[in-house]
């Protein structure tokens, strides 16, 4: 089974759960006066879940035929050739983004940002640290000034133990 049909199967599962919630669990909490209303909070989700289940079944069962083969489009990444792509860097960068999200509050904006840009560039193969770290530091400083000073959104600049 091709990847797109597997994805449709997963979406089918999600929509079934969504539909179950809409049809069987949401209305129990509804106060009596709202039950006289022609529209309930669950009405629109019910319609959506039915339509989504039908559509994802069409894809899972392969009822619709595509009129264009996708391999002809060179700008698309074709997942069958996935092994040829640089998946390791992409995965590492994603992990780094998660790490950044977790570090942003405790380590402060400046430190985590310099770390993020430096490590990110090193994952991609950059080795000239004497350029990289100053550039990252200047960029972090400028962005911090713009966000804090111009936009007025608080960003803790320094690690928690420094203030």
């Amino acid at each position, binding site marked *: 089974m091709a990847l797109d049909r597997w994805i*449709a199967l997963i979406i089918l599962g999600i929509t079934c759960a969504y539909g179950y919630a809409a049809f069987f669990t949401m209305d129990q909490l509804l106060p009596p006066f709202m039950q006289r*209303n*022609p*529209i309930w909070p669950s009405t629109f989700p019910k319609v959506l879940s039915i339509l989504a289940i039908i559509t994802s079944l069409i894809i899972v069962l392969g009822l619709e035929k595509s*009129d264009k083969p996708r391999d002809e489009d060179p700008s698309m*990444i074709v*997942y069958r050739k996935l092994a040829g792509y640089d998946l390791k860097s992409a995965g590492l960068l994603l992990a780094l983004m998660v790490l950044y999200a977790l570090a942003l509050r405790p380590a402060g904006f400046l430190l985590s940002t310099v770390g993020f840009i430096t490590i*990110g560039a090193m994952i*991609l193969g*950059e080795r000239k640290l004497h350029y990289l770290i100053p550039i990252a530091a200047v960029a972090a400083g400028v962005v911090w000034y713009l966000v804090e000073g111009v936009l007025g959104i608080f960003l803790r600049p320094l690690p928690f133990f420094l203030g």
Partner: protein
Amino acid sequence: MLEGLLIGLSTAFSIQNLLMVIGGCLIGTFIGMLPGLGPMSIIAIMIPVAISMGDPSAALILLAGVYYGAIFGGSTSSILLNAPGVAGTVASSFDGYPMARKGQAGKALTIAAIASFLGGTVGAILLMIFAPMLSSVALLFHSAEYFALMVVGLSAIAAFAGTGQVAKAILMTLVGLMMATVGEGALFNMPRFTMGMMDLQSGFSFITLAMAMFALPEALYLVMDRKRSSPGGETGKIENLRISRSEAKAIAPVIGRQSVQGFFIGVLPGAGATIASFLGYAVERNIAKEEEQKEFGQGSVKGLAAPETANNAACTGSFVPLLTLGIPGSGTTAILLGALIALNVTPGPRLMTESPDIFWAVIISMYIGNLVLLVLNLPLIPYIAKVLTIPRNYLIPFILFFTLMGAYIGQNNATELLILVGLGICATILRFADYPLAPLLIGFILGSMLEDNFSRSMQLADGWGFILDRPMTLGLLIIAALLVLIPSYRARRAKARQAGVADGD
């Protein structure tokens, strides 16, 4: 109308807003030039900045400037490197790149800039004529018709999404609509589908979703596929920006035709700059004289002017449904709609009467934006083109950093960053499997409006009767169904014919 125009002029010509146009165009050109980053990603990155400015007209002017700049920047990299940054400028590389190879890069850029300028200008004039007309018609719509009109818009977007598989696009639209129901709705103050998580109480943030759907997968693609970010060809010297009188004569009728055609294609939901530019190219090739036809693809000035005019006119045209109906016809205008809603402005037929300053200032600033691109960006192009030499090792971490910052500024919450990464991974996998992502975002943004209008009409008609109450509602819903069913029916027939099965008629 004249009064509104004057209000618009005075708003658009304030120092702040002029700076916004200029800044937006420059930023857009800069980033739009980078291969692989489309206008949607750029606008998504710029939205937090625009929203936190607080002034809706300035914000919309900035974002519109970025949009134009991105399209212009995209054509620059198409011409110089044969590496279009934006899908709407792919057709410009057909003739623009051969011209650059022949050493006429400067001339190609000038033609592109002039064609874009004229396309955008004619588009802006047509917008000035048609938007007020359409919004006075739209004032007659009831919520039932509005609901039906949005359904038509969504199905048209799904039908034209371009991957040839309508079911996938519809499924993505529905997923977007389902995501919009998460959190507390306006009509019922009761949390829905939050799974007990506090962070989902106010629903998904549209900025996070826009970043996750467009900016993050683009950046990850750049990482995974080295070829994408390395320039395909050598950047030639950009000199001699002048064009000759005969060339100007040759492209004048092309620009005239394509600006009108492009505008009307842009107005249609789902058909944006990309379709307009390809169609413009094809039409001009077909009606050209025979000896000129041979030049197409070899560096024809007409072949460059046609898609450039059409894509800019279409960009302007795509603002018509946004400003008059509040229904975006493309991913980019959907993002603009989200930004406006975040700024407490609801675009729709009453925008023109309620806040004429926004409505007219945007239209006027589109014109100024085109002028800025011609006067300011064109002479600067040789310098701006240097951005193409930024090494990817520096570029990619910065793109990722800006997507993270955008999501963080929007919500001021570190959990948002984790949601961003999670949704970004999902979006990348969906793109692998050729699921179009723009319908998802458009569905998400229209979701709450769609449900509000649906609920209102249900309440007014006390049930499902609203569908039959007014003939227009039913008619629109039938059109929506046909839009979805016809392409898949035709695809089945084409497939059946290929297999040698005789068809019924």
